[in-house]
């Protein structure tokens, strides 16, 4: 394992130090926590937006803190949901009296830890609402199991709910729009190589030189299927098709596209994938309103990518296009 780190057990702490140093004009760390908030938090009268999860997905989530997106990001240990006390600190730090909204990715750990924090905050009289993001079509959508994971599509929830809150939306408005995004966003990912959690020191799984893992999450978990490695066009087709099959888009529908790199896949390759994705959508008469290509939700140094489609209407378009000053999503 080769990493540019100091102590494997201090990577989150060291990262936050460097992050705050980089964006000292717009971000601050809540003292003695792993919570990053807008420097001007809490903003009186504005709904506070909190997201978070394990670390190792940078720029998610701290990179999305800023005017027009999140008010706070709670950074857990690498790939480990943050603890309730930290989430609770975030809620308190961004509570401007209009309530606090939590964006939670659908992992058992995240859901439970955020829920306990909600209970703590509600006991203080803070209004708290939440949305659970579950955009990963690789996983079966079932109420008998954990259900679908939240992956790269979460970025669109941050952006659009963030714009709504920034525009003065109420807690219920923000919840409604976040749920609308969740209902309209789908993703699917694949990987060519695993990643190594610093404190573990070993790759999360092993793949032969001719294998790829399809249906990847963002925590180095194995995917849903292992296959012989395919061309970029084949990969793009498979991911896009699975997403489309689940969405039921019609010709003339409008979408936003996100081709997300998982960590070590060169941007060149992401563009190659996007070339095919956009070709497929064009063939189906689906209009692409906006495309995002890059590393938005990573899995340390995993090689691979995911394709996300968000079905848009006028309201979602306007909020997606609204200004954002978050370092990782300048808009």
């Amino acid at each position, binding site marked *: 394992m080769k990493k540019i780190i100091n102590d494997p057990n201090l990577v989150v702490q060291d990262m936050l130090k460097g992050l705050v140093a980089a964006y000292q004009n717009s971000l601050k760390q809540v003292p003695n926590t792993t919570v990053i908030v807008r420097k001007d938090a809490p903003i009186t009268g504005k709904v506070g937006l909190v997201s978070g999860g394990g670390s190792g997905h940078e720029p998610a989530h701290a990179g999305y803190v800023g005017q027009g997106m999140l008010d706070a990001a709670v950074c857990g240990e690498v790939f480990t949901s943050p*603890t309730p006390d*930290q989430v609770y600190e975030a809620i308190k730090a961004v509570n401007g009296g209009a309530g606090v909204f939590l964006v939670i990715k659908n992992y058992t750990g995240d859901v439970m830890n955020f829920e306990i924090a909600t209970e703590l905050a509600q006991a203080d009289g803070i209004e708290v609402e939440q949305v659970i993001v579950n955009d990963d079509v690789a996983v079966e959508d079932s109420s008998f199991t954990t259900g679908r994971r939240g992956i790269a599509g979460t970025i669109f929830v941050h952006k659009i709910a963030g714009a709504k809150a920034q525009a003065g939306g109420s807690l219920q408005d923000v919840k409604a729009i976040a749920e609308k995004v969740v209902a309209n966003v789908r993703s699917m990912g694949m990987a060519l190589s695993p990643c190594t959690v610093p404190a573990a020191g070993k790759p999360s799984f092993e793949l032969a030189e001719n294998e790829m893992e399809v249906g990847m999450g963002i925590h180095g978990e194995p995917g849903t299927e292992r296959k012989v490695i395919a061309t970029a066009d084949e990969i793009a087709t498979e991911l896009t098709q699975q997403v489309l099959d689940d969405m039921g888009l019609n010709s003339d529908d409008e979408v936003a596209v996100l081709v997300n790199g998982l960590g070590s896949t060169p941007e060149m390759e992401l563009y190659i994938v996007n070339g095919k994705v956009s070709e497929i959508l064009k063939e189906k008469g689906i209009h692409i309103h906006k495309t995002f290509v890059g590393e938005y939700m990573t899995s340390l140094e995993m090689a691979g990518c995911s394709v996300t489609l968000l079905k848009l209407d006028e309201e979602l378009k306007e909020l997606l296009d609204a200004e954002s000053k978050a370092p990782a999503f300048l808009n």
Partner: protein
Amino acid sequence: MKLDVQQVLNWLEKTNEKIQMNKEYLTSLDRAIGDGDHGINMSRGFQEVIDKTSTTTYTSVSDLFKDVAMTLLSKVGGASGPLYGTAFLKMSMIVKNREPIDKKTLEDALESALEGILQRGKANLNDKTLVDVWTPVVDLLKDKEVIKGSELEEVSKNAMESTKERMAKKGRAAYLKERSIGHLDPGSVSSYYLFASLAEVLSEEE
């Protein structure tokens, strides 16, 4: 049987020893069907538990359990943190003013802990989670008039091993569906360490 502060501290220490010794093993189990951090999470959390409880003086098991709960809740994270944290919090509430803990109190405490776990995690029995170990343990306590260390060890061990053949329905392993079969559930293994340690404490007393 009777459990006082000293014996519960002993239980926690034995649990911590097993977890630290098997940190890599737990992590490798989680790597196979999860995200490869269960050993790291549990070792971080239980080390903090020992650091905290070994430097604090307790006059009641209830207070001790509460500190364990808060430490696990705030140091473990992931799925296991809130589940183990909730379990100890429930136990702290049940044993209050019922100390030292007798068999019935232990039974009630573990039953309440399991209820907390079920409520928090929404898993069912046989979903291949730590519920699959806690349930037969609680059943054992309910079935028997007296509880023997060796029986507790055996039941929790069998329960842990039985997770291997199951397909996961909750937790990260659920994403793997059929591919989760043939692997032990990491959280069930750490729960086995907890009960095996309790069994040792009970046996010492027998």
